[in-house]
């Protein structure tokens, strides 16, 4: 009996040691299949709320990726376009600007929600709530961009017709933030680091803070999406990318000062103070708390109500959401 136990233990040790030996030059948890590719491209934009993507590099290396590139793209719809057109493989991106190109048939797959709470609606003294946007001038960089899409969805939520009720101001030469600071518009939707800057400059008031105010705080803002073909061809790599991003999100929550400094050092943002403030305000460690499908359904419904998309939420989800990797990781990683 003793011999049996020793033999079993010996074999188990041998097996584990062998496994460990095999993994010494590969990635973590090496008994998982190796990624089908060791190259991955992620987008780089002006916004800082996608911080987990910016500090994911070390986690991606742990997962076996060697060639990690950050490709500059426009934010929001620009990121979605870059994913669809195979300029990047993955990006964290806002939920609403993902739904619109998916509705148009772009090959994008949504994999998970990562965090909520990015955007804040700023208004002047004439705006006390979203419903007050009726008849007001609201600045957006361009129609169809993330702020426009989010604001349209928010307006629809309170019964406004964003096409008729809001006077959209677009000006390519100046940002909505500056237009607002100059008193030329009544409201604008800010994404980090804009809200932090506006509050530091004591300009305007926060009408909606999506990190706090319902229902926005209950839905994901940034979701991880990838190129449909990449995900089809590289399922192991996809799961590893998602795991790296989720670990990076946790790092953002637990070590905001270090993450802010790394983002400045790596050139993702110039202002440490605004980056740190955003990292402390955005709830990065709550990816397990919300249902990403709820988020897609919610925004798809709002966008459909106002005619920005045609497909039903169920069709968007059925065609372009893949929760397999998230579900596996939810079982494997808690916290």
């Amino acid at each position, binding site marked *: 009996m003793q011999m049996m136990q020793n033999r079993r233990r010996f074999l*188990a040790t041998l097996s584990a040691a062998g496994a460990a030996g095999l993994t010494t030059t590969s990635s973590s*948890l090496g008994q*998982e299949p190796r990624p089908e590719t060791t190259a991955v491209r992620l987008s780089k934009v002006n916004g800082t709320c996608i911080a987990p993507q910016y500090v994911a590099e070390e986690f991606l290396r*742990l*997962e076996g990726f060697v060639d990690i590139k950050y490709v500059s793209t426009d934010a929001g719809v620009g990121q979605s376009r870059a994913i669809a057109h195979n300029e990047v493989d993955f990006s964290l991106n806002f939920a609403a600007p993902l739904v619109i190109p998916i509705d148009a048939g772009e090959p994008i797959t949504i994999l998970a929600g990562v965090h909520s709470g990015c955007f804040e609606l700023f208004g002047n003294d004439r705006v006390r709530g979203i419903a007050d946007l009726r008849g007001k001038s609201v600045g957006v960089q361009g129609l169809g961009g993330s702020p426009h899409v989010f604001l349209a969805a928010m307006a629809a939520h309170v019964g406004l017709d964003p096409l008729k009720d809001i006077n959209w101001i677009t000006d390519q030469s100046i940002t909505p933030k500056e237009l607002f600071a100059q008193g030329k518009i009544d409201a604008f939707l800010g994404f980090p680091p804009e809200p932090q800057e506006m509050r530091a400059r004591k300009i305007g008031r926060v009408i909606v803070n999506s990190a706090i105010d319902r229902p926005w705080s209950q839905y994901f803002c940034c979701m991880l999406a990838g190129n449909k073909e990449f995900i089809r061809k590289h399922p192991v790599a996809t799961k590893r990318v998602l795991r790296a991003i989720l670990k990076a999100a*946790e790092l953002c929550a637990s070590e905001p000062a*270090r993450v802010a400094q790394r983002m400045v050092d790596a050139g993702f943002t110039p202002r440490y103070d605004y980056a740190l403030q955003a990292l402390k305000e955005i709830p990065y*460690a709550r990816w397990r708390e919300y249902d990403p499908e709820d988020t897609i359904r919610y925004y798809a419904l709002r966008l459909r109500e106002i005619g920005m998309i045609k497909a039903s939420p169920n069709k968007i989800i059925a065609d372009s959401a893949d929760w397999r990797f998230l579900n596996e990781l939810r*079982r*494997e990683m808690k916290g």
Partner: protein
Amino acid sequence: MTMRAAIAFAVAATAALMLSGPREARHDVSLNPPLSKIAPAPQFTLTSQDGKQIALADLQGKVVAVTFIFTLCSATCPVLTPMMSLVQDRLGPDFGTNVAFVSITIDPERDTPEMLKLYAQMHGADVPGWSFLTGDAAAIQDLTRRYGVYASKTADGDIEHSFLTSVIDRHGIIRVQYLGVRFDPEEFRRDLLSLLRER
């Protein structure tokens, strides 16, 4: 089912839901799904706070929680270690006999066995069941990588790291990893006990 049985069932189900928390109740099909088998736990042999050699293989047959800390950490380790200490106490007689904790330093240059011993005492660690390990810096660096933990020394000599606590079953398989330090200690305890109940 009688009315009394129905009420008892409803109360029990509600209590189970409350204990498991709204997050699980909302997303999980089952309140206690079996933990998945992730991968064989990377093996190690390191030096304990008492100067003894401890190998993961020595703990086979026990459910083991492996985590990575350093004693001079002022940010998040002081959250994790007391939480594990709390779970240690709540495990009662199972702790040490059937469940073991292993905290491996990611700062082996400063964390000598003596330092780890002080740290263990400071946190009320029941040391027969909870080992604080140090060793060769390169070996520990490799181990952190194999467990999926990121750790890097900063220019000012501090250590930047992620938290990942791996729960290993009695057969040496990683079954779940707890990310960060804000996890629910009760869920952690339940997972440890669920692995004890497995054949």
